[in-house]
């Protein structure tokens, strides 16, 4: 892109490539570093170094990874533990639906890009005004997060014994803070806020009565419910 078009992009409310890269790296680095917390937690749950690293390399979706090692540590069977992790991972399919249209990747690239379809890459890509910016955001966030998440997982697993109690270091608060930071820019209108509020109620309310991972999926129902209620209130189709 020439200097001139970059300037025009800025003028028209778009974002220069450099700004997208900076945002993407901010997310990639911050979340990538929290792989350390996963490495420590996983090793502390009794998984070997190989098992811990295999999860970060091959599953690469933090909430599912945490859920799996948590369930195994709590004595859950392999299939129950995997089911909880899977249910948490289902949300990535929703991100994929959205990203598929936005990024318009060639079919041959999709199987490789799929591994990077997670909360953070979706949040960064969806926040961009143009396809070019979305692609840059997705790629830079995906690459930096994947590399760092795996490196820090390894370091965390190796250093787990030395650190002791991860809770004492407050590392368990990194996950929710990351999710909140990704969520905040999406809460633009009353509709988004209503969806978020209802999702919190559903997620927390159903937590004690449903198996791990399922309450979050049920909370996804907040989206269609609020859309439907919005449509009713406005007295026209829910397309508005």
């Amino acid at each position: 892109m020439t200097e001139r078009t970059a300037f025009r992009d800025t003028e028209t409310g778009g974002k220069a490539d450099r700004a997208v890269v900076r945002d993407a790296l901010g997310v990639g680095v911050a979340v990538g570093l929290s792989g350390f917390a996963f490495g420590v937690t996983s090793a502390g749950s009794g998984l070997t170094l190989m098992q811990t690293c295999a999860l970060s390399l091959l599953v690469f979706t933090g909430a599912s990874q945490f859920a799996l090692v948590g369930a195994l540590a709590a004595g859950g069977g392999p299939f129950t533990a995997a089911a909880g992790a899977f249910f948490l991972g289902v949300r990535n399919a929703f991100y994929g639906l959205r990203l598929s249209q936005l990024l318009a990747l060639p079919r041959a690239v999709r199987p490789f890009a799929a591994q990077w379809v997670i909360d953070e890459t979706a949040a960064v890509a969806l926040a961009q005004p143009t396809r070019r910016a979305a692609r840059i955001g997705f790629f830079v966030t995906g690459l930096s997060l994947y590399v760092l998440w795996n490196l820090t997982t390894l370091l965390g697993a190796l250093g787990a014994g030395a650190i002791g109690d991860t809770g004492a270091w407050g590392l368990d608060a990194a996950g929710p803070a990351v999710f909140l930071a990704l969520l905040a820019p999406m809460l633009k209108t009353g509709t988004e806020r209503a969806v978020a509020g209802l999702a919190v109620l559903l997620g927390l309310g159903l937590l004690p009565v449903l198996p791990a991972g399922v309450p979050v999926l049920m909370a996804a129902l907040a989206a269609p419910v609020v859309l439907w209620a919005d449509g009713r209130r406005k007295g026209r189709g829910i397309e508005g």
Partner: protein
Amino acid sequence: MNVWIAIGVTVLGCYAVKLAGLLVPAGALERPVVKRLAALLPVALLAALTAEQTFADGQVLVLDARAAGLGAAAVALVLRAPFLLVVAAAVLVTAGVRAMGVG
């Protein structure tokens, strides 16, 4: 062995759902209501995940130091702090509250 089975099933399942989303034909998303829904679903999921990872201990709801950490993250967000600072605020405040023996 059980752990490797759990890892294998999780790897296959999680990759399959990621790929499934990307492979749905673009035409399926042309209707405005579907677009709107696809944009709102991540909002619902992220909100529920934030709440559960802050207030859940297994299947029990608890109020502990993580809530203070999340509050600090929220304040940092309102002040438009950079991403890393938001996460650092949550971690430091949570550790600090625990060090004082609360939660």
